[in-house]
């Protein structure tokens, strides 16, 4: 008999997009913490990620996880110029909204709210979807992220012009595009290897 997937009959899945903290439950066994080797820790990059079932599941292929994590960190956390952090997170949240990743959207909507202090606009994106009117600059970033997320890709020169008209130079545009592209990677993993759950109330 083959291996069996994991099921969570007692968990409650979120029914709407939210900025609340969610859990994520894996559908296959993560590596046990006790079995992690130096190669796994190199893939996890931060030792604290060994606590995360998501990262310990991806650690089954540690080299890919390590390269993925380092790509992610540079696109989103590198403070040197380019697009402000809040708007990189906006690209991630918009991509997650279109793909339908409630878990990813919750994390990156929170980050977008935190760095922009525009929690209401971020909530509008979650509630109304990617057509929400968030003002010209955010609209241009959302539109480009969404067009890049469609398959086949719908990004065209009009989206690039829209970003330029709103003050983005090529460094900022590349950050927006890489942020949206990266979440096309992340969304697919989170959506297909496990499920989001409302955090259980503390006893």
């Amino acid at each position: 008999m083959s291996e069996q997937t994991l099921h969570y009959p007692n968990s409650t899945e979120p029914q709407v997009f939210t900025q609340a903290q969610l859990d994520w439950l894996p559908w296959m066994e993560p590596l046990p913490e006790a079995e992690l080797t130096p190669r796994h820790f190199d893939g996890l990059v931060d030792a604290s990620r060994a606590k995360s079932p998501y990262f310990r599941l991806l650690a089954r292929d540690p080299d890919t996880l390590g390269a993925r994590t380092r790509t992610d960190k540079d696109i989103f956390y590198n403070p040197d110029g380019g697009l402000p952090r809040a708007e990189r997170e906006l690209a991630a949240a918009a991509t997650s909204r279109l793909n339908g990743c409630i878990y990813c959207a919750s994390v990156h909507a929170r980050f977008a709210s935190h760095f922009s202090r525009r929690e209401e606009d971020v909530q509008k994106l979650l509630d109304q979807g990617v057509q929400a009117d968030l003002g010209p600059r955010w609209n241009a970033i959302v539109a480009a992220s969404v067009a890049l997320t469609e398959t086949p890709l719908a990004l065209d020169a009009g989206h690039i012009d829209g970003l330029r008209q709103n003050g983005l130079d090529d460094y900022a545009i590349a950050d927006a595009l890489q942020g949206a592209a990266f979440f096309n990677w992340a969304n697919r993993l989170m959506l297909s290897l496990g499920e989001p759950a409302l955090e259980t109330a503390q006893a």
Partner: protein
Amino acid sequence: MTSAWNPSETDDVIDQLAGIQPGSHLDAVRRHRLQAREQAQQSYLALLAPRAPLSSQWPLNERLAVAAFVAVLHQQPQVQRFYRDALATQASLALGKAIEAEAAQGLARGPYGQYPQGPLSAEDQAGPVYVVAAQNRAVLGERLSAGLAHAHLLAFHPRDAKPAHLQALLDAGWSATDIVVLSQLVSFLAFQIRVVAGLRLLQAHPAPSPSPSPSASAPQPTAEENAA
């Protein structure tokens, strides 16, 4: 089978596919996020030229078959050609033809799929459920056929994913670790293809005056002209 498949650390595949020349403006833009540039290449190598000791025994020819399939689904010409040629170095003509045929019958528009029942159900979007054609199953085999079905799900309607999709892979002979590699490969390609397409577009539509600096730019319009 034609030439060898040996991607290297130094031949950056995104630059190659996006047509970015060393020393060009887009090269500078990419190198501004140098770690992202290097680690995108490392991701590509980890998935398609994995280092020993291997964490998964999933064979290279099947990895390239999935890559060629996913590339066609995205309809990005440079990437499509690249992975088709890559597959040809490792697979029989019959396998290459079966992949081309399956990708052609798998074309769709995404993302579609269903949400958890509730307020978001109004946003549910129907789309095709891809099944490998009977006449190609023999040449692809059960394992790779199951892999293609999963790749199609991830490419076009990942929000439809359920534990049953992973169970189907496990039942077709995939290990949990193989499934992680398959998921990473398809998801990574979704990223790589978008970076290639985005950078190609940015390069093809340069800003009217690249990197303007106050001293080098044309005389500034007067306040009156600005107001007009």
